[in-house]
């Protein structure tokens, strides 16, 4: 019965799929090496990565690096920076240097977790909207637009006011504020990519939908997403330190923002309480932004730089 209608055999179908997959893979491998070489050629991308690596290292090794237990009173309060206490002590007599080192953990953790959460939430919504189209698309994108219009701080504060501010709630609150960025990005990428050949090839080869989404579209949509994640992390760190500064962060953890909160009452007596944690925040944000810029340079290289066309 099957012989009457010659159908392409299963094996040839899968061979087509394999072929497409293999070509995509080769292309991708090539892209990856080119990616890394260009990335390292930009000075700032490299600098950003270096700063970030340093911070991560500090976060992991904080207990080893810190000379004192940050939560215990180890000296007189409000002492200026000295050899024993490189960043001075705070109002309770805790070593500020250790505090700042430990603070790296919380701040980075929240930064990354919130960025990832935003990616997950925003990404799923964006992917759904981009793939399904139609009503789903319209509704979801309008929702994203709405959330994007609301000022970030307000959203976060509102969420905190209602639900409290423990570690995970903080992450949720920040993610709630920044998911639209990821959503729109991924949505845009999906719109772009679904029209391209390898997607059509995959559809023709009858590959299942999740396969198409996960293995074909997603890897190629990835580069700008990585840039956005870096930017999101920087934003998340900024938001968290803002919350800490307002005294609304998780009181059980040490974060740079909270250190600034403590500093607020002692600005006159102890400038170091404000300067060092703030500096740490700055460095983290600069590092992430440089990294994002470096990555962006690789993805959208600017062929025309420098000379601006005002010369007669």
């Amino acid at each position, binding site marked *: 019965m099957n012989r009457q209608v010659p159908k392409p055999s299963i094996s040839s179908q899968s061979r087509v799929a394999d072929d497409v997959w293999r070509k995509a893979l080769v292309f991708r491998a090539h892209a990856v090496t080119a990616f890394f070489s260009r990335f390292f050629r930009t000075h700032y991308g490299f600098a950003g990565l270096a700063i970030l690596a340093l911070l991560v290292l500090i976060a992991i090794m904080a207990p080893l690096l810190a000379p004192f237990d940050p939560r215990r009173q180890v000296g007189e309060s409000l002492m200026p920076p000295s050899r024993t206490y490189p960043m001075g002590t705070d109002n309770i007599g805790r070593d500020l240097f250790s505090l700042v080192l430990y603070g790296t953990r919380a701040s980075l953790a929240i930064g990354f977790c919130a960025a990832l959460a935003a990616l997950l939430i925003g990404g799923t919504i964006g992917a759904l909207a981009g793939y399904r189209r139609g009503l789903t698309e319209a509704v979801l994108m309008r929702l994203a637009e709405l959330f994007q219009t609301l000022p970030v701080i307000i959203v976060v504060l509102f969420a905190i006011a209602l639900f409290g501010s423990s570690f995970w709630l903080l992450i949720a609150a920040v993610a709630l504020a920044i998911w639209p960025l990821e959503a729109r990005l991924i949505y845009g990428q999906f719109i772009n990519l679904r029209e391209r050949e390898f997607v059509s090839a995959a559809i023709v080869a009858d590959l299942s939908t999740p396969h198409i989404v996960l293995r074909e579209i997603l890897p190629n949509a990835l580069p700008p997403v990585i840039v956005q994640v870096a930017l999101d992390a920087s934003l998340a760190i900024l938001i968290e330190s803002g919350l800490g500064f307002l005294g609304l962060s998780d009181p059980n953890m040490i974060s740079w923002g909270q250190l600034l909160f403590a500093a607020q009452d002692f600005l006159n007596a102890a400038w170091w309480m404000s300067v060092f944690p703030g500096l740490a925040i700055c460095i983290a944000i600069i590092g992430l932004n440089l990294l994002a810029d470096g990555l962006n340079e690789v993805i959208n*290289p600017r*062929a*025309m*730089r*420098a*000379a*601006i*066309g005002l*010369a*007669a």
Partner: protein
Amino acid sequence: MTREASATGRLLEVRGLTVHLRVGDEVVRAVDGVDLFIERGECVGIVGESGSGKTTLARAMLRLLPPVELAEFSGEVVFDGREIRTLPDAALQEMRRQGTFSMVFQDPLGYLNPTQRVGAQIAEALPSGLRAAAVRQRVLELLREAGLREAELVARRYPHELSGGMRQRALIALALAPSPMLLVADEPTTSLDATVQLQVLETLRRLHRERNMALAVITHDLGLVAELCDRVYVMRAGKVVECADVFTLFDAPKHPYTAKLIELCTRGAPQPAAKPADEAVT
């Protein structure tokens, strides 16, 4: 301010012009040692495919290159006896305001300021110091000269409110404002519909005659060249491969590339009737 020759010298003389662009890590040799000249009142065509460097050549000659990094920019460009490639900015601006050369670009929408009315943009090209009424008068005259009958209407409009042909003519009017001795037109008809192309062609021809203005037409459309030009330069990959007067070019092209270009242009045209030579034989 020294002038080598009097008004009997060539209008424009280019010697060994080289423009190498730096794009990313590569160097693109857009123009590679080009020599050409334009006599006063002449109409010269510069033809070639896209990427042959003809636009870059024109822009480099008039020092209107876009903001790209230049790996090399050398050679001599002498306009009306003055070397302009190395002229300082202020002097060049002065020259431009005083009726020397002008350029009409290919994409009229992109080359007109979208937030300014057309009339105002043309007025900007007029010499300063005129009274407002005189400026208005002049703008309308220019628009009419460029072939726009409803000059008042056009002058008041913004570029996106005009059709492609009208925009192109507005750009022409703008280029004519300082009464230039040389008008360079880059693909003046390419982005237009067929009927409008003919009209603009007519306008250019009329202007060339009436103003006794030298015209340089840059195009890949050999038909246009055949209609308008006295002499033609053929460019390929940044170099001039052939230069001849228009009749010689079409009848007896010396370079194989030129021959190919001509063949491509006339392909698809109806076959000509049997040549007289054949008939004579029978």
